[in-house]
């Protein structure tokens, strides 16, 4: 079985907000997975691994101080490079828009933020996000939808929606 390590690492970074902790969490997940592989039915390996990761993370948080998870500065936050053909004006608009979206995201309650990160940043499906968080899929949907609605509302307040990147 070849686990999707890049997906696991990305999700772990969303959960821990720190690249060193994320690496440890993936290692922990792999160890648990290989220990339990005989009980795995072979279906949905990604969902299986994400559920294991969730349990591993719950155990880690229980052992450690919670403020490590709340540190928004932790982890590498490298923005992807922009498309090379954009004009300087478009670049500036996009930067302003991205900064406002990020600010709106950070202003959300943690439980909303976590769902947005898993779906929009890590590219998980609703079911996969539900597996990671240990909540029903309906909860993922409602949190995600309310989070995006709030982000949109906040962007509207800044007037940036008119000049968003096209």
């Amino acid at each position, binding site marked *: 079985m070849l686990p999707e*390590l890049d997906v696991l690492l990305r999700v772990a970074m969303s959960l821990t907000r720190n690249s060193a902790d994320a690496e440890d969490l*993936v290692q922990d997940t792999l160890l648990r997975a290989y220990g339990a592989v005989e009980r795995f039915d072979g279906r949905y390996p990604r969902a299986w691994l994400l559920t294991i990761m969730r349990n591993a993370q719950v155990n880690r948080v229980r052992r450690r101080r919670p403020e490590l998870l709340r540190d928004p500065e932790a982890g590498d936050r490298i923005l992807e490079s922009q498309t090379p053909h954009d004009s300087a004006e478009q670049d500036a608009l996009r930067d302003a828009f991205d900064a406002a979206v990020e600010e709106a995201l950070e202003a959300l309650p943690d439980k909303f933020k976590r769902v947005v990160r898993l779906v929009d940043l890590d590219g998980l499906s609703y079911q996969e996000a539900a597996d990671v968080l240990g909540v029903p899929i309906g909860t993922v949907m409602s949190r995600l939808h309310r989070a995006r609605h709030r982000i949109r509302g906040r962007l509207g307040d800044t007037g940036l929606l008119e000049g968003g990147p096209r």
Partner: protein
Amino acid sequence: MKLFRRGSVADRPLSCRQVGQILQSFLDSELDEVTADKVAEHLEDCRRCGMAADVYLEIKASLGRDAPAVPEESLSRLEEFARRLTTGEERET
């Protein structure tokens, strides 16, 4: 998510309210094909819903750009760790 059965209400166009309820699932490709086609049709025709969808798409794209890059060194170490696990070396150390 399947909201409509073929041959029943699936033949009717969606209202703005219905689209609003499933727009996020549409943008996340979480709808079945029949429903997704109907939402897409509505967004083509309805300027208000179409603009709302555009805004949410831009927010989604922006969040995607905000994703931290996966650290290559971490990934390499984890690949090596996984390899050692599968070959039994890791459990011995």
